[in-house]
């Protein structure tokens, strides 16, 4: 955890983790690790191009077309500005520098829900589920609520990935990032519910959004939601507000007891902008 808030997979099973659920990401690639393959291509040009190379080619072509349209001279890649893959292959001498990495939600899911992963601390001791839960809580605020949402979407067959690029918590893929762009972006809104009993013996529940003391603009405010929705609409994703609520009586032990997951409730709200004059469906 000194290095950061993620887990490096030590054994050689990364292939299985990718093929059986699209877990993990390569640290030098957009999603599945391709850096070693890109380096191998130097010796074997017939290998299929990695997605990163396809994108680079497309951008380079677009730049050339722009230059032609503007009547400018087309500039080739300047060897003083960029290394070729051949140069990097020679310099790195066959040593790999890409790590296959799982984020904390993927890790806990593999550990807790599927029981296919063991986590060792830096001394090499295997960590218990509760140890991992507590540690992950120290790394990420409101880990319990976010993990509940992750677990919820995983159990429905979605592949949730980090949504930082879009200003949300998760983006949902049907089959992993390599096949199709994600359609849904999820914003997790943690809430605490308290049962309120008034004088007439009538039970009611109030739900309160959980905000941290330093939040000046609670992230579920209207202004913030409008901002996030704009971004999501631009990238053709539908925004889903995922309210994860826990009763106050259990919420206090959320940081060190995974069993609170059994007491979470999830309500989803799809958030779409509607313009009365534009949409006539």
């Amino acid at each position, binding site marked *: 955890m000194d290095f950061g808030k*993620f887990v490096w997979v030590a054994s050689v099973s990364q292939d299985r983790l990718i093929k059986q659920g699209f877990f993990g990401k390569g640290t030098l690639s957009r999603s599945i690790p391709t850096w070693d393959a890109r380096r191998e291509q130097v010796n074997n040009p017939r290998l299929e191009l990695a997605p990163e190379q396809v994108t680079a080619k497309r951008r380079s072509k677009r730049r050339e077309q722009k230059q032609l349209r503007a009547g400018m001279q087309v500039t080739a890649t300047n060897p*003083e500005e*960029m290394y070729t893959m051949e140069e990097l292959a020679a*310099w*790195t*001498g066959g040593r790999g*520098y890409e790590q296959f990495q799982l984020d904390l939600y993927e890790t806990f899911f593999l550990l807790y829900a599927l029981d296919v992963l063991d986590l060792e601390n830096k001394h090499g001791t295997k960590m218990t589920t509760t140890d991992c839960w507590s540690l992950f809580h120290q790394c990420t605020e409101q880990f319990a609520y976010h993990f509940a949402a992750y677990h919820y979407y995983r159990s429905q067959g979605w592949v949730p990935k980090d949504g930082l690029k879009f200003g949300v918590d998760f983006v949902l893929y049907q089959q992993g990032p390599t096949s199709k762009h994600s359609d849904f972006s999820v914003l997790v809104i943690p809430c605490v519910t308290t049962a309120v009993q008034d004088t007439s013996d009538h039970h009611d529940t109030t739900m309160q959004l959980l905000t941290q003391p330093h939040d000046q603009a609670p992230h579920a405010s209207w202004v913030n939601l409008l901002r996030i929705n704009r971004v999501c609409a631009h990238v053709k994703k539908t925004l889903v507000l995922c309210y994860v609520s826990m009763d106050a009586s259990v919420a206090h032990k959320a940081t060190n007891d995974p069993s609170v997951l059994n007491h979470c409730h999830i309500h989803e709200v799809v958030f779409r902008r509607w313009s009365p004059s534009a949409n006539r469906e």
Partner: protein
Amino acid sequence: MDRSFQDHLADLEPIINRYPTSAPFLRHVYLDLVLNKQWKQVEIKPIDSLVANVLLAHEPNTPAEDRLVILPRDHREKLSTDAIQAIFEKLNTAHLDDDSTHLHQLKKLTLAIVGSDSTVLYYHIHKGLVPPKEHV
């Protein structure tokens, strides 16, 4: 190249570790720029007033003298307009100019925000208003 990449990284470690808290993020952004994006001109510069290293890098297909000042950050670190203003001020007084780069009053800062899944998001932050670029 006579020295291996591993030796080159070993040479850089003392500079990277000068600021231990941000060292993992700096290392990651450095590898992303050099190994993934294949940029050739990437230097690490310590900025004591920022308690962080910045990367001084030349972006391919930009004018030869241009350099980006890239500051790696953890995505959980909060930012505000005041904080960004303070970063600009500290960078200006830190004198990044040297004979070859001619960097004067810094007008553009690039944040390299490292997410929890190792994605690096690069954002340019300009000081003040910038007119829209003309599209070809």
